[in-house]
């Protein structure tokens, strides 16, 4: 039962990583830009979630507010930072993205303070439920259910809607997609909106789990999601999902079996190094982009 519990914990964290990694891989797939500042959108979502929950006393308002703020931030980042740089070599938007992450983290520090801000009330932190003999935190369960529901809704949108088909066509061949009336600019905005919405949602979920938001909370997530999309194969949605769940489970077991020598957060870095050495094309074949 202990091993099952570790696997379940891993899948729960993996589902949160999937929310973040999918946004990152979507943006890489369309623009070939490594959107490192995605982590700042995640942090923004966390802050807006905490502030809104504290102001209104309602998580039902906090979640949409955080997602909306993340979407607007993502769109603004695309419009103001990446769009003017798309004709430049890939290193230029990458450097801009790293600079933006540092800038936004410092901005959070200046505006909200170095210590971060906590929820006034978070009754769910210590609540647990028992499912099939396993004791799971309510927030962890909510994180898993929220992630699976969001990712499933996104998968259905991509697979069954006309806009989803146009979106995939643009990932595969933007020039031909425009020949059939698809606006590449609109698809790019949609891409940033969806990816950022996932990051905002993940931000609030993690803030709830930690019971606070702090300026540097995106840093570790940023390199973990980078490890995941390399693990899954750059630009591959399926790879990002597999990579996320795999990293969650490896971390979960690694925390127990490697606890003497390796920190939990270092496991992602080890995976990244191993993948770059032995399978640089990633674990899954690229299916989109």
């Amino acid at each position, binding site marked *: 039962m202990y091993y099952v519990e570790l696997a379940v914990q891993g899948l729960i964290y993996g589902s949160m990583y999937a929310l973040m990694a999918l946004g990152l891989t979507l943006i890489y797939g369309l623009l070939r830009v490594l959107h490192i500042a995605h982590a700042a959108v995640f942090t923004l979502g966390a802050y807006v979630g905490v502030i809104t929950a504290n102001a209104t006393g309602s998580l039902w308002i906090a979640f949409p507010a955080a997602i909306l703020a993340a979407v607007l931030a993502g769109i603004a980042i695309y419009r103001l930072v990446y769009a003017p740089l798309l004709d430049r070599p890939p290193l230029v938007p990458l450097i801009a993205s790293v600079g933006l992450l540092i800038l936004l983290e410092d901005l959070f520090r200046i505006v909200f303070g170095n210590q971060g801000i906590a929820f006034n009330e978070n009754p769910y932190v210590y609540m647990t439920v028992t499912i099939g003999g396993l004791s799971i935190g309510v927030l962890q369960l909510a994180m898993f259910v929220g992630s699976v529901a969001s990712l499933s809704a996104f998968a259905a949108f991509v697979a069954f809607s*006309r806009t989803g*088909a*146009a979106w*995939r*066509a643009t990932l*595969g*061949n933007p*020039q*031909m*997609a*425009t*020949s*059939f*009336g*698809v*606006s590449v600019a609109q698809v790019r905005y949609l891409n940033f909106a969806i990816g950022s919405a996932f990051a905002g949602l993940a931000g609030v979920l993690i803030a709830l789990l930690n019971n606070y938001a702090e300026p540097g909370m995106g840093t570790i997530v940023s390199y973990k999601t980078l490890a995941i999309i390399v693990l899954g194969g750059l630009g591959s949605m399926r790879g990002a999902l597999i990579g996320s769940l795999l990293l969650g489970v490896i971390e979960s077991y690694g925390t127990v079996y490697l606890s003497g020598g390796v920190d939990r957060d270092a496991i992602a870095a080890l995976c990244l190094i191993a993948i770059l050495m032995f399978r640089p094309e990633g674990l899954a074949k690229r*299916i*989109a982009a």
Partner: protein
Amino acid sequence: MLEIEDLTCTYGSVVAASQVCLSVKAGEILALVGSNGAGKTSTIMATMGHVRITGGSIMLDGVDVTRLGPRHRARLGMAVVPEGRRLFADMTVDENLTVGGYTRTKPAARQARERAYALFPRLAERRRQIAGSMSGGEQQMLAIGRALMVSPKVLLIDELSLGLMPKIIDLCMETIVRLKREGIAIVLVEQNTDRALEVADAVVVLASGRVVKAGTPEMIRADDTFFQTYIGLDGGQAVRNQVEANVEQRSS
């Protein structure tokens, strides 16, 4: 239906098409022929809006589309079957058609899809198959079907027969003649000049990006020296032989 005047486009310092003029009416096929590098594909891509033009004008059904992007041209009834098909390779046949009909209303798109399947029943049989996994002939059928989803007034076709078996070329040629009879204006770029002249109502010959002759297929054929100089030493036979050799090599 489509009026192009003095179209000029360049890639850096290289002039791909210079002052190209052509006109095609509804229910007519215009063959755009010439040797490799004559500027045929550049003219097609510039007409669709994928290559920026540096001079000239393009009128589609009386509307000046010169400054419009490809997606607006598609909405006004222009469609392309590009060289090499350029399908959405990771998507199914059905999904490729869905993207083709992106600008249409849902009922209109449904009707256009059924029509594409009626024209090419093999596509209907393979509607769930990934486009990239189909044969060259099936892919060409899908490329034509996808373009028809636009319900085009003008259809631009680049290298219809390239790499296809003779039987499939016949089917594709029959289809475009049928589309012409339905009133679509067609611009056909074709290396296989003999086949192009068989179906064309008018011909424009390009060389080094310029129009060197325009007229009916009979006029082009009648001038033997011209035909050999600008199109091929043996009237396109060399190109045809090459294509057939490639096909045979692939099938063996």
